[in-house]
């Protein structure tokens, strides 16, 4: 989850997010280098007493400051496209989960075998147990088996919502009447938080998402228990 004074991304919990994180580091480094260079040149121009009134043209520098930016752009584009196509690969999911957005909670459906469905409401601040996170915890978590490709189909029952979990690198709009597909793999066991990412009314900020990745046996036990409770 996010922590106070955080500057960078949350720790990656899926292979795609790891790639995105590294790409961001790469692109940001290029940005820092260019900005530093430009800032240095500005300061140097502003603080020098030297003047030259007789420069008319310079083929060499023109070539350099055309070629270098082109090369830099290619160095950014190649990893970017690599990740884009990586995210577009054909998946072979082990499990399909549906996430339906409502005003103002999410509901999850696991219907590959039995009809398991449950709602996931935010835990109000006054009901939090010590150690729980304000505005992020829910009464029921979306439990998934770790290291399994998961297909998640996202839709909405009323207005636009958006299902997002930053540490998994997932965000997909929930559109009424439309079924949007995305996929992820939770690389490690853990609890991953997200929040609704499309304005949907008064309690848009109070319908969080919690994904809990557990070993397969625990997932099977959990789903049997959830079916009994339903």
């Amino acid at each position, binding site marked *: 989850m996010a922590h106070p004074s955080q500057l960078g991304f949350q720790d990656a919990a899926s292979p795609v997010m790891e790639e995105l994180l590294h790409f961001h580091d790469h692109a940001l480094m290029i940005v820092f280098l260019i900005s530093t260079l430009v800032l240095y040149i500005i300061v140097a121009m502003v603080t020098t007493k030297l003047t030259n009134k007789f420069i008319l043209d310079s083929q060499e520098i023109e070539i350099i400051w055309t070629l270098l930016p082109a090369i830099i752009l290619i160095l950014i584009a190649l990893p970017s496209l690599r990740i884009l196509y990586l995210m577009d690969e054909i998946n072979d999911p082990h499990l399909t989960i549906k996430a339906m957005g409502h005003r103002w909670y999410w509901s999850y459906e696991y219907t*590959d075998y039995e009809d398991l469905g449950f709602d996931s409401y935010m835990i109000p601040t006054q009901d939090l147990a010590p150690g729980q996170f304000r505005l992020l915890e829910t009464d029921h978590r979306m439990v998934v088996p770790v290291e399994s490709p998961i297909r998640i189909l996202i839709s909405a029952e009323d207005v636009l919502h958006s299902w997002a979990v930053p540490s998994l690198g997932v965000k997909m709009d929930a559109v009424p009447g439309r*079924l949007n597909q995305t996929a992820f793999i939770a690389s490690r066991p853990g609890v991953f938080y997200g929040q609704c990412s499309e304005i949907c009314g008064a309690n848009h900020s109070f319908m969080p998402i919690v994904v809990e990745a557990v070993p397969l046996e625990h997932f099977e036990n959990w789903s049997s228990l959830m079916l009994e409770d339903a």
Partner: protein
Amino acid sequence: MSDAVQEKIKNYRTAPFDARFPNTNQTRNCFQNYLDFHRCNKVLSAKDQDTAPCDWYRRVYKSLCPISWVQKWDDQIEAGSFPGKI
């Protein structure tokens, strides 16, 4: 029912990738399988054949379609107001 179909249904894990619906929008994938299940049932029952092969479509639409959509369509079929052609 052929062995191949039986194997596929027995080893069903979740809806596999369907090349007819390669993109993000899977609405039609869900609806098509729902239609195909009911059409398969209708055709096989009309010929007095075993409707077990239709189970594949049932598993796929159950995996993909939101429960509320399925309920709505089932109600519509019962009421005779289902918009799709079965």
